[in-house]
């Protein structure tokens, strides 16, 4: 077959917690799949631990001569300039998940969005519907914009109900830190109804802390992302994890597929494509269960 | 006092060096030296600074390997194990620059590397009492639980000596053990050394103090410029002839003529009722052009007093006035600015940057004189080095050697030169000739005397009594933190000073 040669660079954050490791997994998986489908296609996946080194990685990808860049920025605003640089050279740019404050076609051709505000909002709405008078403690991630967006979404979700937020503290998207924070919440508040920890990794620590304290007042925990362990719990009808809010790391794969379609398909792909923050319940859980994923 | 009583003359040869040569980085410092040490003798090793005494001693105790030549132990050629492992063969050394870890206690230092254990647990009680015993033998009052870092330099030397004495050794090398000791402590040491000698231990004694060599040793070997010059029984030599063998020329009078300062010369430094933690209520004055001596036993507080005057320590009370201006307590700069400089005797940890070269050390205290606006002129520094090497006869074979690798005496000269570079009006020198050979000593005494004639004032703190007597026009004697006597003119004599220092006589400070 005479297929045209296309090189796509994929820049994603390093696997620094469960969700990002899922991102790495899916990027790799889809890259391999697509390369086997298109012999002319070469996909280079690069991970970086922080915005500055991601900017470097983008530059290095460009040095290698790429036709398209698929980027999941660890922190979007600091990376805008680097992305613009690439885009300025005529390279096709797809941004995944995290949008810079100016997010139009001067920066990118395609935007595949995970919906951060919706992740918060869905969780909030679920709590509002299930336990309208709940007293909630929140464990946040790291102090970066996407975390803030989730918080804002959550507040919007519980608006107009009696749901009361007792506390918000950072758990750094880390199980051990979440364990500590939860332990201290349990000391601090004699009665907690619901925990929203917005991330499946942190939920592991939260559940252990509750278990250890033998507290029965906590009715359930709402996490998010869709890790196989948490989805499994939902599927099995675990009372503590009745639902999970989907924020699939697989979205990077979607973006990659769409980018490839732009080169090999018939129609040019442009614009914004939002992935819903689906509420995973016992009924639909099996659709989102990937036992082979590391996350 | 006689050292000829024992049968030192004909003991069997224990350890000997055959045609030992040594080079550092290609620079040769020993040239085919021969040396014999007999059982039960005290053998002096003499020579100018940098002659290679310490190097020879280190080779014979395994701390350095010779470049060529043989070491014969009990008639067999051996290769001594490195890093003090020769101790197992009965060879120990008191290093010229001591080897103590500041964070350990006296007891811990004494037993370092050969701790006594019972069932794997340190027998701390036994080690403590053993330490006490050895220290008492040496007449040292050092607390066996004290941290090394809290000891004065003389006390550190005592610990170092105790460490060597306490090991069951056949051969003990002592590299200038008495350089910072006063007469009292030296006597204690010699008593122990003689006792051990009579039990068959052999000693090699390196010193620049001729009288001690005459008093203690059985034979003398002289080195000059890394070459063996002569070995002969001490009894057939005298101080003059040893000095001559070392230096290779006749020595003129050691001390320059004293010059009494004019009584109505201005008072440049006045110390009024100064107290620190240990020093109590000390007052004295120094006139322009005067050389004032300070004498006393180990720990009598001289160093502490001088550091308080120089602003290196804060005073609990009292005034220090320089040129009519009071100096704030604990402010080195204020004292420096008014022209006062202090030379420490602790050259290794307070005096020199051991990893820096000569130039960096020499100009460290006087960088303002070598360039403008903070910029340094290498040419000017090089000039200063040239000048200092001439003035103080600093001899190194390798101009780029770091200070820590210079011979002990040459380090001392460099330190002296460093302080003199600041061109001070008032100079406090703690042990001016520590470890300096007789030839250079004379040079330094004349230099000090010339400074005084120039109108500078000098305070000489020294545990070498002849030095204080020969150089100073007034001598203060300290004891337990106080000035107990102030001697002038004919009063200045060894007996008088001793009487005050030992507390047998007391009089109000002048």
């Amino acid at each position, binding site marked *: 077959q005479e297929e045209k040669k296309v090189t796509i660079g994929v820049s994603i954050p390093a*696997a*620094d*917690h*469960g969700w990002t*490791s*899922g991102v790495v*997994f899916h990027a790799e998986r889809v890259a391999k799949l697509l390369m086997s489908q298109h012999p002319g296609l070469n996909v280079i996946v690069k991970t970086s631990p922080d915005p500055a080194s991601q900017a470097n990685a983008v530059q290095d990808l460009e040095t290698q001569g790429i036709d398209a860049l698929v980027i999941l920025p660890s922190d979007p605003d600091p990376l805008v300039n680097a992305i613009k640089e690439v885009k300025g050279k005529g390279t096709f740019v797809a941004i995944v998940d995290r949008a810079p404050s100016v997010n139009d076609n001067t920066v990118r051709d395609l935007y595949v969005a995970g919906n951060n505000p919706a992740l918060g909002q869905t969780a909030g709405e679920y709590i509002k519907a299930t336990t309208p008078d709940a007293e909630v403690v929140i464990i*946040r991630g790291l*102090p970066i914009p996407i975390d803030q967006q989730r918080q804002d979404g959550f507040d919007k979700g519980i608006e107009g109900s009696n749901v009361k937020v007792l506390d*918000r*503290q*950072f758990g750094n998207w*880390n*199980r*051990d830190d979440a*364990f*500590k*924070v939860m*332990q*201290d*919440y349990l*000391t*601090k508040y004699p009665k907690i109804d619901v925990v929203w920890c917005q991330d499946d*990794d942190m939920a*592991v*620590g939260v559940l*252990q802390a509750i278990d*250890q304290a033998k507290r029965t007042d906590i009715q359930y925990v709402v996490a998010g992302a869709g890790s196989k*362990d948490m989805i499994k719990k939902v599927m099995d009808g675990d009372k503590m994890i009745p639902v999970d809010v989907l924020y699939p790391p697989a979205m990077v794969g979607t973006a990659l597929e769409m980018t490839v379609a732009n080169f090999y398909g018939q129609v040019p792909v442009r614009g914004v494509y939002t992935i819903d923050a689906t509420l995973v319940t016992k009924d639909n859980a099996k659709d989102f269960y990937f036992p082979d994923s*590391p*996350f | 006092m006689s050292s000829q009583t024992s049968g030192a003359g004909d003991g069997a040869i224990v350890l000997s060096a055959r045609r030992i040569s040594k080079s550092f980085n290609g620079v040769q410092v020993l040239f085919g030296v021969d040396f014999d040490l007999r059982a039960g003798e005290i053998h002096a090793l003499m020579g100018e600074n940098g002659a290679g005494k310490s190097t020879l001693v280190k080779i014979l105790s395994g*701390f350095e390997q010779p470049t060529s030549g043989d070491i014969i132990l009990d008639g067999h050629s051996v290769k001594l194990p490195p*890093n*003090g492992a020769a*101790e197992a063969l009965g060879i120990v050394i008191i*290093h010229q620059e001591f*080897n*103590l*870890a*500041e*964070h*350990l206690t006296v007891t*811990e230092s004494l037993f*370092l*590397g*050969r*701790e006594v*254990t019972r069932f*794997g*647990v*340190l027998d701390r009680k036994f080690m403590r009492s053993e330490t006490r015993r050895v220290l008492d033998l040496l007449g040292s*009052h050092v*607390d066996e*639980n*004290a*941290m090394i870092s*809290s000891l004065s330099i003389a006390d550190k030397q005592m610990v170092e000596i105790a460490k060597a004495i306490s090991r069951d050794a056949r051969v003990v090398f002592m590299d200038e053990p008495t350089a910072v000791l006063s007469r009292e402590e030296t006597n204690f040491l010699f008593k122990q050394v003689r006792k051990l000698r009579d039990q068959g231990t052999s000693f090699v004694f390196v010193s620049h103090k001729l009288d001690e060599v005459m008093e203690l040793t059985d034979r003398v070997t002289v080195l000059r410029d890394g070459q063996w010059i002569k070995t002969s029984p001490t009894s057939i030599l005298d101080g003059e002839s040893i000095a001559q063998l070392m230096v290779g020329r006749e020595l003129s009078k050691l001390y320059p003529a004293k010059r009494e300062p004019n009584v109505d010369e201005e008072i440049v430094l006045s110390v009024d009722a100064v107290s620190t933690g240990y020093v109590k209520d000390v007052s004295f004055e120094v006139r322009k052009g005067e050389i004032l001596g300070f004498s006393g036993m180990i720990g009598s507080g001289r160093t502490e007093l001088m550091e308080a005057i120089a602003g290196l320590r804060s005073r609990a009370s009292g005034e220090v006035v320089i040129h009519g201006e009071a100096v704030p307590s604990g402010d080195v700069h204020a004292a420096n600015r008014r022209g006062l400089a202090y030379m420490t005797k602790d050259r290794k940890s307070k005096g020199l940057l051991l990893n820096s070269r000569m130039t960096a050390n020499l100009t460290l205290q006087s960088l303002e004189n070598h360039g403008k606006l903070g910029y340094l002129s290498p040419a000017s520094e090089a000039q200063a080095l040239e000048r200092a090497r001439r003035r103080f006869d600093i001899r190194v074979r390798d101009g780029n050697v770091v200070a820590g690798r210079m011979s002990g005496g040459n380090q001392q000269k460099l330190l002296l030169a460093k302080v003199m570079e600041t061109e001070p009006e008032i100079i406090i020198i703690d042990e001016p000739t520590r470890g300096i050979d007789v030839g250079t000593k004379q040079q330094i005494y004349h230099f000090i005397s010339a400074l005084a004639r120039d109108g500078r004032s000098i305070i000489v703190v020294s545990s070498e009594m002849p030095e204080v007597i020969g150089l100073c026009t007034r001598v203060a004697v300290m004891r*337990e933190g106080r000035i107990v006597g102030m001697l002038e003119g004919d009063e200045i004599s060894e007996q008088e000073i001793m009487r005050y220092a*030992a*507390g047998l006589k007391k009089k109000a400070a002048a």
Partner: protein
Amino acid sequence: MDTSVNEETRDVRRRSWRDIDLRAVAPFAALILLLILGALVNPNFIGLNNLANVATRSAFIAIIAIGATFVISSGDLDLSVGAMVAFVASLMILFMNSGVIADPALMLTAAVLFAVVAGSLCGLANGLITTVGRIEPFIATLGTMGIYRGLTTWLSQGGAITLKDPALQEIYRPAYFGSILGVPVPIVVILAVTCIAAFILYRTRYGRHVVAVGSNADVARYSGIPVNRVRTIAFVIQGLCVAIAVLLYVPRLGSTSATTGILWELQAITAVVVGGTALKGGAGRVWGTICGAFILELVGNIMLLSNFISEYLIGAIQGTIIIVAMLVQRSLVRKS
């Protein structure tokens, strides 16, 4: 004359003993201050439950910091401990998941041994690279930090490694969550490890040598102490301590990932220094270290229990508290 000198000497001895005591006591003074502060912030704070929680979860850092006390006393530094925790824990879980031994109890025993050996080997590697390779410990262990963490990431393929066998989990769980005579197991382990470490450091020849090497390596060498061996063994002890921390860590969450133990090296070193051991080497304070680890954990706990601090400012206030705690210590020692 003799008596007067003796009296004076005794006086000095007394003074210097007092000085030493204060220095050792200083971290505890800071700890007490913190406890008072905590009690003011939230009445729940001083509850036995909360304090036990804090002490229990300080176990990882405390035990690692005990090892770090040896390494630091001997004048070195180990930045790889956090990564080592992740690596050893991953290996241990993978071993347990491998199912080579059917009987859970036996398997657990084997896994414990396995972790201990793995930790010691990691420590040995650090020690050899530093001493035989003569590389600054900072760089050597920064390198191995990268290696251990990289290998962990690779083993986990970026995700988590989770203990699968529920039977194993069940019998292993008490190692973290259980208690002996009412005292949580981790606290018992901390105490045991500290006692042993204090014994080694203060009462054995090896401990003496560690301090001597850290204080002045040349002097130690001249005293016939095998300097490199002493340093290497300190690294091995550090590895052992990491392994012990892992033994407590694995039953807690039953899983590890590439982020396990991130920045723990910094916390361990901080605990050591807050406890009064100087980074330059030459003195080790094992009990101070434990106190330091506890202080660190308490500061975080107080922050979380307090109601009036913006969560954005927690880091800033933690920093301030640590500095103030050190100032308190200093002023105590200076007064002496």
